């Protein structure tokens, strides 16, 4: 059968949707979705999220690109998400190809399919979606007429594990470069340029990485010696794109409002981009530098338009560390007093560990005390210095006391285990700190004047450290899985007390995440093998199978454990050295060395420039609106 939009829609309604769970994932037609006549657009762009609708619909980057692309008359941008297992089976049974949600036409009819790389374990879904779409999974097998498969997002800072499947990567922020890509493509398409020359021209756009134009060179021991450009037009180092002035950047004042409940089902407004707190394990904190704020006026203006256009009754201010916004207090106050009476709530995803944050939370959550989240990350001051998390125990205790006194009975604490230099003492420190927080709550609940009506609950969420490219800890191996499991056990034993609950990230998933995050081109073979063996939606525990990954790596002649856990010598060439975030490798190395000496590095927003180089390399600078401007 040759599938077109009419046929897909018919079979969906008559056969597939009645039999799958959550058919709303596949119906499209949501408020704010844009339907254009494809025959009247010169370039068609499919934004593809390698996870299910429920997750993908909350992704802000997609909303921004969808809006920017659809504002152009010559472009139609549509969306697609990975189908859940039941839907995939039903589609495969009938031979129905992956389709877009707007026009319900086959994905392979688009000029571009753009994937976002948010989480390493979602990569197999990319291969699966391509296969479902009837598009060759290997980039080298694609021909004229096949769509260009492109990818961006934080995962693209180490593109190598996906090099074989993606035609080109977009490194950095997409707002501006997306238009350049479309313009160039439109011109070349009109001229009838073949695929290879389109790729050649694309590689000259700043921020575009065409992996087939590069070749890795390995030494006798199998270690990477360099990744060198094959084509003359390909730059030696691909530097990320960055939006210099966020206040002038396009931000959607309307977006697709899902019917079904998705994660983060609320209006989202990005208040600033970047974070220079400098946590040494954090990739986002390095790759999104420098900090660029939106002005309070623009934030409020956008808030008003977004709420009006979407009809949401909740507005979430988003940023890497929202309360670091230099105008946070003023803006929150204004928003709450403006929209509170209309029954619209403002929400804060997580708090900084200080009483100022709790005071702001009080203002925001006047009535609905859902729970506060703090992230001390490590259990001892020594280790917190190593990771550059400038949180003192006194600050945390003061903040949680303020929270309990303010009437919150649920506190969530984020910690990480397996951090570089970690010892048993640090693990016990987590237990001790968590108990201290819990005891403070019990004490306040027991006092007559306390605002607590329920027994306090402290939920401790423990993730495993995953080394990420372009961070000061990129050289550090992940702790072996047995060690992580042992640490989890130790922690469990030392926190058995009423009111304290522990939850984990699956250590096996973290292992695979680490192996891919620091993977080189050889990992692409394992990726493909894992998909062949059945990997689909591996970001879901029901879809994840560690043994399958071990087998996939083994059959590709690689060791999963070694990719994840080996320490990389500081002087070795890294698989992502030809991708630049603007932050210099020297800075990362200096940060690594400071970490090993237990020295902290202050935030350049509040103190002097710490020399990460991004401002110089990208000819930009931090932009703050409130006090705190240097």
């Amino acid at each position, binding site marked *: 059968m040759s599938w077109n939009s009419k046929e897909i829609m018919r079979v969906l309604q008559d056969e597939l949707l009645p039999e799958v769970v959550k058919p709303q994932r596949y*119906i499209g*037609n949501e*408020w704010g979705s844009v339907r254009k006549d494809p025959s009247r657009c010169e370039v068609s762009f499919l934004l593809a999220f390698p996870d299910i609708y429920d997750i993908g619909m909350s992704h802000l980057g997609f909303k921004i690109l969808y809006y920017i692309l659809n504002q152009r008359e010559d472009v139609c941008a549509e969306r697609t998400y990975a189908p859940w297992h039941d839907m995939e089976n039903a589609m495969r049974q009938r031979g129905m190809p992956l389709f877009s949600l707007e026009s319900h036409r086959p994905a392979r009819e688009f000029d571009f399919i753009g994937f976002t790389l948010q989480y390493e374990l979602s990569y197999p879904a990319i291969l699966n979606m391509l296969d479902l779409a009837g598009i060759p999974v290997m980039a080298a097998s694609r021909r004229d007429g096949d769509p260009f498969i492109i990818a961006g997002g934080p995962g693209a800072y180490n593109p190598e594990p996906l090099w074989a499947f993606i035609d080109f990567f977009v490194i950095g922020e997409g707002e501006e470069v997306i238009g350049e890509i479309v313009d160039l493509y439109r011109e070349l398409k009109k001229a009838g340029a073949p695929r290879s020359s389109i790729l050649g021209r694309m590689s000259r756009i700043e921020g575009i990485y065409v992996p087939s134009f590069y070749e890795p060179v390995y030494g006798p021991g199998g270690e990477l010696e360099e990744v060198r450009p094959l084509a003359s037009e390909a730059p030696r180092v691909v530097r990320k794109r960055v939006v210099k002035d966020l206040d002038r950047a396009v931000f959607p004042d309307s977006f697709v409002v899902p*019917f079904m*409940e998705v994660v983060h089902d609320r209006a989202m407004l990005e208040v600033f981009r970047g974070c220079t707190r400098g946590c040494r394990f954090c990739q986002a904190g390095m790759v999104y530098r420098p900090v660029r704020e939106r002005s309070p006026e623009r934030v409020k203006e956008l808030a008003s338009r977004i709420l009006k256009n*979407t*009809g949401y009754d909740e507005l979430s201010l988003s940023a890497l560390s929202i309360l670091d916004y230099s105008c946070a207090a003023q803006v929150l106050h204004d928003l709450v007093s403006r929209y509170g009476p209309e*029954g619209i709530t403002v929400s804060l995803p997580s708090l900084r560990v200080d009483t100022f944050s709790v005071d702001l939370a009080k203002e925001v959550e006047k009535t*609905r005390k859902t729970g506060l989240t703090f992230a001390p990350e490590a259990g001892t001051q020594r280790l917190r210095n190593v990771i550059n998390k400038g949180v003192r125990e006194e600050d945390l205790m003061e903040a949680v006391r303020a929270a309990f006194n303010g009437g919150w009975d649920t506190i969530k604490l984020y910690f990480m285990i397996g951090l570089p230099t970690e010892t048993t003492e640090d693990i016990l420190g987590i237990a001790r700190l968590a108990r201290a927080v819990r005891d403070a709550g019990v004490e306040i609940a027991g006092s007559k004047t306390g605002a607590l009506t329920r027994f306090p609950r402290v939920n401790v969420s423990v993730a495993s450290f995953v080394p990420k490219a372009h961070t000061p800890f990129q050289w550090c191996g992940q702790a072996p899985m047995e060690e992580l499991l042992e640490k989890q056990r130790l922690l469990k034993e030392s926190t058995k007390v009423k009111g304290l609950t522990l939850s984990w990230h699956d250590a096996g998933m973290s292992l695979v995440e680490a192996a891919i995050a620091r993977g080189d081109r050889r990992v692409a073979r394992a990726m493909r093998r894992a998909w062949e063996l059945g990997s689909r939606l591996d970001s879901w525990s029901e879809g994840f199978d560690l043994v399958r990954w071990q087998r996939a790596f083994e059959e590709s002649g690689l060791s999963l454990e070694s990719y994840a856990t080996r320490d990389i010598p500081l002087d070795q060439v890294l698989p992502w050295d030809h991708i630049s975030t603007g932050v210099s490798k020297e800075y990362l190395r200096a940060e690594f060395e400071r970490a090993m000496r237990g020295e902290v590095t202050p935030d350049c927003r509040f103190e002097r420039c710490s020399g990460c180089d991004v401002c110089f390399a990208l000819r930009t600078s931090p932009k703050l609106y409130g006090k705190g401007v240097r």
Partner: protein
Amino acid sequence: MQARLMQVRMRARLAKLDMARFTSHLDFMRTIGRATRRAGIPVALTEGFHPHYKIAFGPALGSGIASIAEYADFILNCRIPGEEFSRRMNCALPVGFEVLEAREVPLTWKSISSVVDAASYEMGLWAPDEGPWRVVEELRRRVKAILEAPSLTVTRQTEKGLKELDIRPKILDLDVVEKDGNDPVFLSMIVTIGDGGTPRPEEVLQCILSGRVPALPGQVVSRAESSDPHPIAVGRVSITRTGLFLRKGRDLVSPMEAGE
């Protein structure tokens, strides 16, 4: 606060069609709530810690069933004409949702879900891909059998396992409607709702299509025939809720007309 203002109650009948029929009742409620905000409809807020909009909906509709009879009550802080309410809402509703009519009703009326006790459905049957399709006579025969039988037992999956249920007493009416030609053929059905054991349209349809209908009184049915009923093959099926009613004696009254 605003609760002291003069409030009015707007009752609306809404449609949920095409792809939108695959949204859940919860989705439907969210969608309508958000549309009122986009449309700037002055819906009143409840008092209390976490205020929410005073919108009350009628009985839930199963996923996959279309409807031209979804009802909702909106408490408004000021009076606006029904036509204006409809117009503004229809500019703010996504494809597949529509306000079909709206009018102000007394604040004293009871909630839709507490007064509505009957529903009508229309089931469209399309011929399978191959061959001519002559089913009207057979459908009529089966419908008649159901109407004349004292009981019609269906099996339902509940939390406690399979349960047998007699839905016949709740079927008020069942009929075959042929609209110009024979593709599609429509079955119309009216059932009582509200007090548990409400017949689901797909259940009744299943009984009819599978031939699992009671034998007509006086008809001699051989064992072989009854254990091996002859199923009617259909291409596609559509189910639409066409009405919700209040039973007043033998009459069915629309919730737009009565509320007590």
